[in-house]
Structures are given as C-alpha cells and as structure tokens.
C-alpha cells in the first residue's frame, strides 16, 4: 500500500428523504492518517454523509470503498452485514455526539473499554483489565474509577471514555459525529487537545463532522464544506478558512465569533 491510496473513497453518493436531497453527488477521498472535517449548517447533510460513509445508511446511488489493512478494496455497502460488523469492531470506530449512544451505561468503565477487545477474541481477564486501565489513564480518567459506571461520570468524562472504548483496538479509521457537542467550552478545549494528541500518536484517519469551525481548524488537515447536500468547497483547512472562495464558506467563516 502506498500513501497515495485513499483508505476510504466515496463516489457519486446520493440519498433523498422524500423531496429532500440529503446527499447530492458527493465524492470524497480520505487518506491514511488524515483528519478530514465535514462542516456545514444544520440540515446540510453532513451527518447523513457520515452515516453513509460508515455503512449505517444505504445511499440511493454511489459507492463507498474502503481499503483494508491487507490492501483489499472493499465495497462498504456490498460486503454484507457480517463483514461490515467485523470491520466496525476492528478497523473502524465511531464516536457519537451523545456518549449515551456509544457507551453501555449499565456496564462499568472497564467493561466498556474491554468490550471491543473481547469482541475480537480477548479472553484473559487480567490483560483486558490492564489494557482498559492503561486507556483510562490515556484519556485522563483516574484508573481507580475503572469499576464505576458511566452514569457517575461527567459529560466530558463520558465522552473521553467513549473515545478510549473506540480507540482501544487501534482502529485505522474513526468516524466522529460532533464529539465536542454539548460540552462546555473549557471541557471542549481539553477534549480537542486530547483527540488531537491521540490521533497524531496513533496515525488514525478521522472523518469528523462538526459545525464548530474552531474545532475543525484545530483538528483537521482538510476541510469539506457542505450545503444542501452538496460539497461546495474542499481544500486544506487553513486555505479554506483563510481564503474562502464560495460565498457560503465566506459567510460561515465570517460568522465565527472571535474569542
């Protein structure tokens, strides 16, 4: 595999909900180790695009191709559910906006982190626990809280726990849907810092959906701007944000509050 091969590429994705065209001929490439942010206003189709890329929703037209660790090109919507699930718990990860959707709230923090390990066949309790504890520390959660349930955690801790749970099997590609949504500003900043550190340490490719331009600037290498289900502008983050060309992008950038 050469760095020139995208890890994920989408061609001509279209999806309509009745008369609403949520996706209109969207094509995207993502290279290994790259962080791609999808920005746009509410209803622009960015979350739908993420769901289609991750195989959770089926497009009306278009293909999504994933290149796996062995270098095989896989059709994400044509591989069948068993293969999709295997992919989802090995090479992929998904960080939800609401940690309650991504965590098992009735299971301890250690169990949450260990679930993916056990799903891929880990059967040594001591090893699983040690790995879970290492990951809790890595996301700045006190390892002494390994047996606490996420219900006793703050919002920021839950989100960090969800990140630990997702990254524990060292996925190559992670989808993130508004990972900092609903958190207060200082917690957001620390979380963004944490994500940035982990992503660059592990060399993970990330598709990040956000409406927060500041978060996109901090994390993303490349930016895709969506509006009405179409990609209106695409390019390196700094280029798009410093020199927006499409009128909508100009509006978006100019509407960011200066701190």
């Amino acid at each position, binding site marked *: 595999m050469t760095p020139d091969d995208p890890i994920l590429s989408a061609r001509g994705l279209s999806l309509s909900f009745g008369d609403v065209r949520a996706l209109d001929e969207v094509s995207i490439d993502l290279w290994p180790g790259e962080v791609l942010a999808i920005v746009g206003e509410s209803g622009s189709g960015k979350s739908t695009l993420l769901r289609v890329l991750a195989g959770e929703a089926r497009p009306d037209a278009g293909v999504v191709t994933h290149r796996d660790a062995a270098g095989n090109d896989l059709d994400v919507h044509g591989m069948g*559910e068993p293969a999709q699930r295997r992919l989802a718990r090995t090479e992929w990860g998904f960080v939800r906006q609401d940690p309650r959707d991504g965590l*098992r709230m009735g299971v301890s923090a*250690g169990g949450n982190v260990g679930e993916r390990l*056990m799903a*891929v066949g880990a*059967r*040594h*309790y*001591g090893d699983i*626990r040690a790995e879970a504890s290492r990951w809790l520390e890595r996301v700045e959660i006190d390892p002494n809280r390994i047996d606490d349930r996420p219900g006793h955690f703050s919002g920021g801790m839950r989100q960090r726990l969800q990140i630990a749970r997702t990254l524990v099997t060292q996925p190559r590609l992670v989808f993130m849907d508004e990972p900092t949504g609903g958190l207060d500003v200082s917690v957001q900043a620390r979380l963004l810092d944490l994500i940035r550190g982990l992503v660059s340490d592990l060399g993970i490719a990330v598709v990040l959906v956000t409406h927060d331009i500041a978060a996109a600037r901090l994390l993303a290498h490349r930016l895709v701007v969506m509006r009405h289900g179409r990609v209106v502008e695409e390019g390196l983050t700094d280029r798009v944000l410093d020199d927006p060309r499409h009128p909508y992008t100009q509006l978006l950038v100019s509407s960011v509050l200066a701190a």
Partner: protein
Amino acid sequence: MSAAMQAEGYNFAYLDEGTKRMIRRALLKAVAVPGCQIPFGSREMPLPYGWGTGGIQVTASVVGPDDVLKVIDQGADDTTNAVSIRRFFARVAPGLRTTERTAEASIIQTRHRIPELPLREGQVMVYQVPQPEPLFRLEPRRAETRRLHALADYGLMQVKLYEDIARHGRVGSSYDHPVMVGGRYLMSPSPIPSFDNPKMHMSPALQLFGAGRERRLYAVPPYTDVRSLDFEDHPFVPLRANGTCALCGARDTYLDEMVTDDRGGRLFVCSDTDYCGTRQAEAVA
C-alpha cells in the same frame, strides 16, 4: 406407579398428532443445529406457564407407550411439580410406565437439575426452560439478539462475565451459566446449577429444551461439545456448597441446605433424591 386413573377422550400423551408432528419437526431442526433456538407453535397446556409447559410438550411429542418416564423438580421426584407432571402423563398416556429411578428411565423431564447418575446412550433429557435467550438481560431487542446469534457476535456475553468478576471476584452465576454449544451457538442451559454444566459436555444422552411461553425449542445432540464461558485466567468453576449429605454422606453431589428448626439448625442433603436413596440402600445392604 402407573395405576393412576386414566383420562378418557384424549389422544395418546394429550397432544393431537398434528401438534406432535409440528414439534418433532422443530426438534429435528434443533438437533441438526445444536444450540440454535427454533421457534414452534406452543400450545395451551393444562398447567400455567412457568410450570413446565415447554418441557411437557416436548415430552408428549417424543414419548411412546414403551417409554419409562422420570420427572424431577430441583432434583427431587416427590415435589409438587414433579408429581403432578408424572401423574398427568400416567393419565393421558396409556401403557407408559413412570419411575423414580434414573437408571431405568428412557425419558427424564427435569427442572433445575441433571441427575447425579451419569446418563447413558438412548436416554433423553427434557429440560423445562423459562427463558431460552442467554442474551436477554443484556440486549432487550429480540431482533437484535437473533442477529447476534446469526453472526456469532458474543462479545456482549463476555462483557457480562467481565462485570461479574469485577464486582464479585469470580466468573459465573450460580445457575443458568451460559454455554457455547459445538463452538458455534451461545445457549442458556436452563436454570440448572453451574455445578451441572459439565455434565452436558459430551453427554451420551440426547438433550432437548422446551420453552413454552417463549415458544422456542433447542437441543444438544449426544456427544456434543458444550463449554461454559469463562476467562483464561478465571476458569469456570462449578459451584457446590461445601458440605456432606446428612443422609447418605456423599461429598461430591449437589446439596440442598435444609433449615431444621428456628434456632439456626440446618443440614445439607443431596438434591437428587433417587441418587441419595440408592446410596442409603446400598449402605444398609
């Protein structure tokens, strides 16, 4: 034993032949795919759900006039449920003999226990199952648990065992501890004590499971691999009260604890009444 009053007007073993055929078809499928839950059209039976309607329907479908039936409840032949089911079959199945001896029985319907005496080829164990779905406390959606079984996606069950160790320091529940059948299907062994789980592994007897309310059948054919779930560093350990049977002196059987008075007096006795009685008779002789 079988001198009980015969009931008039019923087909042999109560169920009509069409129903028996339907259940046998489901049983064949269950035997062909060990551990897989097969839906069947459960009938209303003349006893309430939870008292063994599933087990009774399975027994009624496989029993013949030459069979010898034993029914146990918590290992005992003389408890209400066991007595009433045994009497029921004696009344509706002319020619059928009933017994309390494990060695003599060709069909053993059970709730909660597997007899202590090793089973032999040709015997059929029929289990009464309240909840056939081993994942039901973990995943409430039935459509989703079926998908998990289809994909053999059992990480969730392992998470539950992880939680048990994290909280209680040991693997497993004292009863209904989940097993993997033939390396493929996760199965609830019905509420037998985990002490009995190892008896299912490579058993020479055919094991049939019926859940009447949940309308599911499943089976473990003879000589099938049945493994209790565990961790490498926390292996499955069958639980047993640390005591000796006060009646027969057995140290290797599953024991019930009996309260004998209101001053804290208590003693242990074998839960398998036939096994205990046989040992006492041998000791006298």
